[in-house]
């Protein structure tokens, strides 16, 4: 065992021994364990030699030795073949790889042999990684092996690069590139594949220790030359595909080519290169032919959406096109496809809507068409375009265009809100048994369409009116369904939107409770209404009911329950005022004067009128009208159904005897009870068929009702916009015109799409009312006046 103490060392002698072993190690020849240990100690001894450490000298000698060794290897690798020819089968690559395997392993061993030198001598000089990357200009320039010492393993690699690779660079590159090109069409046998891969990876390994740009050599020697050669190949490949076949053929093969190319890269190149390989391929084979691809989008989409025989194939074509264009999306390559997808869906939607349908089923046709459209394209885009956001957006845009499409006449409001509300009404009304689940699904579908409707406030008006009708006349199929539909609307549009609907719904539930309490109250006090009695008490303000609380002198039979209930109600609540909505009340009468007993249900005024004939068989219309206190136009509306049903007969003297003109001139004629009344059915309904016309009912009341609806809505919208404007300005104090408009539009979007003109008008109105002013000295800025 030798001593660790520094001592005098004869450099020449020690180095001579060491050199022999080093040569053995680098050449991968057998080195005995004992010899290895001695040499290990020699390195130590040289490094700590007395009086002068000999580390630097050892380092220099080692470098010289390695340089010499590598020069020898160079000769071996170069062989006799001419370097200029790029035949990759001439054996150069094989010789190179053999030498590299031997040398790289040898140098790794050598590094361990010199580990004392590496650790004690070199480490001290070593610049930290941070300094290399971020350091001053002096250290930042590439580490030069002359000015700075490296660990021996690294030194070996640097020498390999400088002495062996540099002279062979172009020869290696040429051979690698041509071998790769050939591998593309003819997969090489495993041995040569292995050699090729190792040759390529040696360029990575040689610089792997470098902190900065460890892949520089690889990129310069392999990747860049390969990519530039490949892009030429790809371009030619793509051009030929386009030349020889149609676009489907091209896309199919280009995609296959892409896969092949990536597999090739994965097999031979460094893992970091996949993206570069892909990008190179896409640039050369796809980006160059974008116009050709875009030109076909419309046809492909159209054919994919027809149910023609080629639809399936076109779908796969589109799928491929999306796969090709998606990576180029940031360059806008997808945009034409998205636009065409939108146009196609919109075109299809308009065609669906225009399809012939029964006039009274317009609402069903409308909703079904829209659902079909939405379902078809959601499925298509999901399948073909992976449900990408851009295409979902395009579909949404198309749907909302189609849903809100204006009628042919210019300026006419969209019928979507009305149709959709009618659709819901039809579903929620009482109908035959079963079909509950089906109706539920359909209502969920209606919500899908609802989300596309712009004029949600108009929809709300129609829906509220239909709901009121259903609730008051007890036409709802099920209260759970009503409630769940309101909740769906709330989920889609928020509390504000369904507030009134909820209140209407609550009133009905509260009323049921109230009736029970009233009946109990009657029992407890031994009172009786003499007749069946059921009441709904609605809260003012929530129900879209036409004003007319017609004054009416009710017949005695009605007066009693009314008084009793009023007394009960006053005792139960305080501070409330009760008004009777007679035109909505219905009574059920039984006839006693006919051979068969008929059940007649009619509005309160009609009941009152019939009850007038209790004592007389006929009476002058004018008298009857006065006793009922029915206002001008209410009279004919209530009398008409009675005449039509044949319960009453209008007869009389002079003008106004004919039933037609009897409407207007009723007061002049005479009304007679038809004692011979007969009807096939024993139940006669006179109720709501004609009575609610004043509410602007959905069906008959048509034109005028709708006109009112629009102006009514317009007023509401102005209020809404002004409120939104004030809220925004109160918060922001000062705001530019365009930003203000944007904010208002985004707030209003939930219930309608406001026009800029209307917003401007509202701003003007607020300036007049001194809520806002134009900020002094500016053209387009408003400020809030507290």
């Amino acid at each position, binding site marked *: 065992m030798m001593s660790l103490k520094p001592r005098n060392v004869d450099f020449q002698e020690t180095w001579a021994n060491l050199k022999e072993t080093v040569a053995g190690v680098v050449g991968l020849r057998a080195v005995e364990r004992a010899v290895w240990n001695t040499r290990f100690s020699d390195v130590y001894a040289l490094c700590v030699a007395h009086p002068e450490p000999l580390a630097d000298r050892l380092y220099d000698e080692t470098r010289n030795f390695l340089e010499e060794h590598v020069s020898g290897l160079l000769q071996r690798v170069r062989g006799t073949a001419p370097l200029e020819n790029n035949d990759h089968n001439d054996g150069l690559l094989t010789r190179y790889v053999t030498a590299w395997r031997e040398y790289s392993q040898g140098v790794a061993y050598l590094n361990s042999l010199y580990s004392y030198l590496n650790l004690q001598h070199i480490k001290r000089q070593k610049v930290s990684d941070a300094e290399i990357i971020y350091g001053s200009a002096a250290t930042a320039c590439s580490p030069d092996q002359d000015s700075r010492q490296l660990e021996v393993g690294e030194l070996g690699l640097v020498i390999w690069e400088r002495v062996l690779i540099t002279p062979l660079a172009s020869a290696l590159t040429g051979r690698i590139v041509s071998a790769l090109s050939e591998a593309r069409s003819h997969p090489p046998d495993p041995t040569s594949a292995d050699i090729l891969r190792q040759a390529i990876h040696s360029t990575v390994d040689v610089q792997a220790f470098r902190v900065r740009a460890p892949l520089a050599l690889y990129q310069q020697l392999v990747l860049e030359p390969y990519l530039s050669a490949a892009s030429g190949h790809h371009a030619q490949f793509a051009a030929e595909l386009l030349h020889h076949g149609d676009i489907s053929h091209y896309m199919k093969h280009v995609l296959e080519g892409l896969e092949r190319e990536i597999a090739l890269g994965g097999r031979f190149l460094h893992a970091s290169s996949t993206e570069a390989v892909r990008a190179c391929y896409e640039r050369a084979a796809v980006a160059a032919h974008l116009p050709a691809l875009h030109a076909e989008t419309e046809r492909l989409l159209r054919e994919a959406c027809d149910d023609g025989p080629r639809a399936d194939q076109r779908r796969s074509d589109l799928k491929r096109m999306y796969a090709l264009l998606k990576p180029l999306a940031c360059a806008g390559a997808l945009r034409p496809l998205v636009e065409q997808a939108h146009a196609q869906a919109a075109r299809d939607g308009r065609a669906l809507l225009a399809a012939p349908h029964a006039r009274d089923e317009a609402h069903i046709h409308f909703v079904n068409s829209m659902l079909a459209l939405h379902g078809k394209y959601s499925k298509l885009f999901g399948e073909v375009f992976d449900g990408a956001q851009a295409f979902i957006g395009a579909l949404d845009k198309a749907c909302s265009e189609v849903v809100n499409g204006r009628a042919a006449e210019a300026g006419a409001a969209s019928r979507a809100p009305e149709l959709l509300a009618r659709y819901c009404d039809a579903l929620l009304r009482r109908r035959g048994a079963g079909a509950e689940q089906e109706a539920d699904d359909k209502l969920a579908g209606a919500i899908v369409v609802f989300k596309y409707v712009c004029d949600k406030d108009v929809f709300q008006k129609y829906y509220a009116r239909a709901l009121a009708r259903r609730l*008051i006349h007890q036409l709802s199929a099920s209260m759970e369904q009503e409630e769940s539909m309101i*909740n769906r609307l*709330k989920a889609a549009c*928020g*509390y504000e939107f369904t*507030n009134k609907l*909820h*209140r209407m*719904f*609550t009133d009905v539930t509260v009323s049921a409770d109230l009736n029970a309490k009233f009946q109990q109250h009657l029992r407890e006090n031994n009172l009786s209404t003499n*007749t*069946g*009695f*059921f*009441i*709904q*008490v*609605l*809260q*003012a*303000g*929530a*129900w879209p*009911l036409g004003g007319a609380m017609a004054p009416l002198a009710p017949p005695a*039979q*009605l007066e009693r*329950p009314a008084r009793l*209930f009023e007394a009960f*109600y006053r005792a139960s*609540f*305080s*501070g*409330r*005022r*009760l*008004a*009777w*909505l007679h035109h*909505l*009340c*219905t*009574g*059920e*009468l*039984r*006839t*006693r*004067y*006919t*051979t068969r007993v008929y*059940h007649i249900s009619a509005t*309160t005024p009609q*009941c009152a009128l*019939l*009850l007038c*004939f*209790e004592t007389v068989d006929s009476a002058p219309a004018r008298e009857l009208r006065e006793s009922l206190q029915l206002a001008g136009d209410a009279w004919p509306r209530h009398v008409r159904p009675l005449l039509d049903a044949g319960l009453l007969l209008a007869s009389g003297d002079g003008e106004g005897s004919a039933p037609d003109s009897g409407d207007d001139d009723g007061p002049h004629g005479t009304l007679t*009870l038809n*004692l*011979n009344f007969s009807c096939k059915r024993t139940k006669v309904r006179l109720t709501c068929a004609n009575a609610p016309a004043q509410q602007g009912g959905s069906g008959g009341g048509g034109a005028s009702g709708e006109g009112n609806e629009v102006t009514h809505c317009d007023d509401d919208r102005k209020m809404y916009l002004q409120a939104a404007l004030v809220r925004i300005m109160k918060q922001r104090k000062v705001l530019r015109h365009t930003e203000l408009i944007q904010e208002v539009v985004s707030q209003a979007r939930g219930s309608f799409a406001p026009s800029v003109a209307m917003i401007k008008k509202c701003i003007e109105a607020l300036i007049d009312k001194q809520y806002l002013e134009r900020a002094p000295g500016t053209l387009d800025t408003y400020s809030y006046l507290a």
Partner: protein
Amino acid sequence: MSGEDCDVDRGDNDGQKSDKMFTLKKWNAVAMWSWDVECDTCAICRVQVMDACLRCQGESKKDSYGKQDCVVVWGECNHSFHFCCMSLWVKQNNRCPLCQQEWSIQRMGK
């Protein structure tokens, strides 16, 4: 023929007992209630008294359709407001905002 019979029947009935031409089996009444106020807008929050006050509208967004908690209150001066609005108001100023009389509650809506 049958008409004749009916007529006779009716005459008989009329004469002997008060048997009716019609019987009213059932009455489905519809009524509307509103607060018995002179002015239907709350002068404090400028919302119709039939609707919940602004504050309650904001809060009830959470628990959907609440009961009608936001009732009306009448002062001795007969002016009426939302109870919620007024109870906040009197903390600052115990006078009716409309007539400046001392505020005292005459009755509450229920």
